[in-house]
């Protein structure tokens, strides 16, 4: 018979003495961690990475064999037993259902048509996870969009989504703007992408797809990329007097303090002042209301 389990009271740490002040700066939400890598999917970089990884692996195996040879020679010279021969390390296979879709070579007719039609304005084409991606030069985006919409074999009638991402760690560009096109009649989707450096003003897609109107305003609001020939290039989500562009990687989640409104007052402002006084006694810092 096993001993009965006697529940132990959990250890409760002593409450800290003195006024409790929340350490705002330590919270992870207030930190800004700049990314060090450039997660831009691309078949070329993937191939290069695979090749580099294979070469590194090969070099490591050769070094293991060379080390074994020297150790064996040394052991024979000293008369000891030879060390164990090295075994080539097999990459660990995870027993789960995650099969990451890697970039693949472009075989789809639409991508090849785009490359043939636009020539060297197409920087890269590839397929990944069943999606077609075509990266064009930033000056040629309007031409590419016209082609997608009007060409008889392409017929991408709808711009489903336009979005942008900030890559601060990249050299040569700072943002990638993606256009997701849908062909309703042919039931196909396509992604066009341009890489844009800081300060560059790409052409607006409103000339081709009027649905890009608000999408580009949102990109301007969140990331600061202006678009040329846009009917109304103003902020859409944040108020017009907002400073900073929120989705940039150097902008903290909690912002730069603009949200700390404190224009609360009540009938005479008495209760607020009494509360501030009491808060001062407890040692909590509260923002002083403005005199307006």
């Amino acid at each position, binding site marked *: 018979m096993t001993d009965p389990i006697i529940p132990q009271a959990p250890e409760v740490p002593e409450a800290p003495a003195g006024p409790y002040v929340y350490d705002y700066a330590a919270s992870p939400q207030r930190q800004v961690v700049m*990314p060090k890598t450039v997660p831009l999917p691309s078949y070329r970089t993937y191939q290069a990475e695979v090749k580099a990884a294979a070469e590194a692996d090969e070099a490591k195996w050769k070094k293991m064999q060379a080390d074994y040879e020297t150790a064996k020679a040394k052991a024979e010279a000293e008369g000891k037993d030879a060390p164990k021969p090295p075994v080539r390390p097999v990459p660990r296979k995870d027993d789960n259902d995650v099969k990451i879709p890697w970039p693949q070579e472009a075989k789809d007719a639409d991508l090849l048509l785009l490359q043939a039609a636009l020539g060297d304005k197409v920087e890269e084409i590839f397929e990944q996870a*069943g999606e077609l991606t075509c990266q064009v030069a930033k000056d040629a985006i309007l031409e590419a969009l016209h082609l997608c919409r009007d060409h008889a074999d392409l017929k991408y009638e709808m711009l489903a989504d336009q*979005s942008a991402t900030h890559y601060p760690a990249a050299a040569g560009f700072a943002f990638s703007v993606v256009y997701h096109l849908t062909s309703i009649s042919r039931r196909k989707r396509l992604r066009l992408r341009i890489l844009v450096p800081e300060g560059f003003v790409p052409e607006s897609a409103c000339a081709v797809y009027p649905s890009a109107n608000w999408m580009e305003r949102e990109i301007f609001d969140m990331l600061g990329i202006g678009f040329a020939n846009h009917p109304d290039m103003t902020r859409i989500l944040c108020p017009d007097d907002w400073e900073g562009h929120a989705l940039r990687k150097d902008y903290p989640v909690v912002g730069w303090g603009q949200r700390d409104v404190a224009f609360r007052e009540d009938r005479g402002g008495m209760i607020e002042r009494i509360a501030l006084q009491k808060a001062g006694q407890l040692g909590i810092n509260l923002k002083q209301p403005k005199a307006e």
Partner: protein
Amino acid sequence: MFKNEEMEINLGPQHPSTHGVLRVKLRLDGETITHCKPVIGYLHRGVEKICENQSFFQGQVWTDRMDYCSAVANNLGWAEANEKLFGITVPRRAQYIRTLLNEFNRLASHLIWLATHALDIGAMTVFLYAFREREDILDMNEAFCGSRLTTTAFRIGGLREDLPPGFEKMARKFLAKFPTCLEEYENLLSENRIWKKRTVGVALLSADDAIALGVTGPVLRAAGVPYDIRKAFPYAAYSEMDFEVPTQTAADTYARYLVRMAEMRQSARIIQQCLDGLPEGPVMAKIPKILKAEVNEVYHATEAPKGEIGYYLVGEKGSANPYRFHVRAPGFINLQSLPKMAEGGLIADIVAAIGTLDIVLGEIDR
């Protein structure tokens, strides 16, 4: 002797049509609208920025609060986008249950649409009747995932648990009485002279305009374009379901009303098929406890009740957080067509236009 001036008024962020905090700047010439500009951002909560600091698993919580009328539709799109990013295949039973819950929440969303749209136009009884049905659907939500509204129903790779015992009985009981409820609403509205006078010919949006403006969902289908992502790019268990995509050609408010009522019928049909054909098996794929991404980007779109909801995810190598989490909200794009619908019409028609677009400010402002 008389001076003619245009009056500029604000259909302010607080107004009784309970669609949320939408502001529309109007310029009126008498009762006719000459210029209309929607102003949004009053509910901008920074969801996309927040999700960049949270893990892939945690993103689902924020999707509930975007289109809060049918949280499960957002959850499904999110789960499928993440599964596409990581190449995870979901077991078949989980797909069926996902489809089942998705269709129930499509019904719930359309019931809210019907209730608020009718309330705005003046038919207040429909509000009470539609919410009575919606309460039964929310009971089912609660039985499955514990929460009525903000469900967080799914997980990356399937579901957290199987359907609870008694769920099927509840669902079948609801399906048995639902067609009579739909008939009740149609009796109140479809041949109603006042309803028809306020909706026929109001807020027109032709098919070409709709496609150019990127409008999807029932608004596009009421203009004659049979584009439904469940049929065009099938996901979950929709490729095995037998249902129709209702369309109309008139492209006015009444046509959109007919399309959504027909969609409710088709949803009931899909739910029946799901219940009858539910396969056995596991409900969750095997995935590691921490999902670390590789450099990858996906755009996955599903058919939410309001239109096409798309998730654009970018993964960073070795990071458990998404590098970019963007949501293509149907309401955001659909609302762009409001000036086209409302200009030239009367001011009473803009309320019908906003109602028929079926917008939810939570997803528009994110």
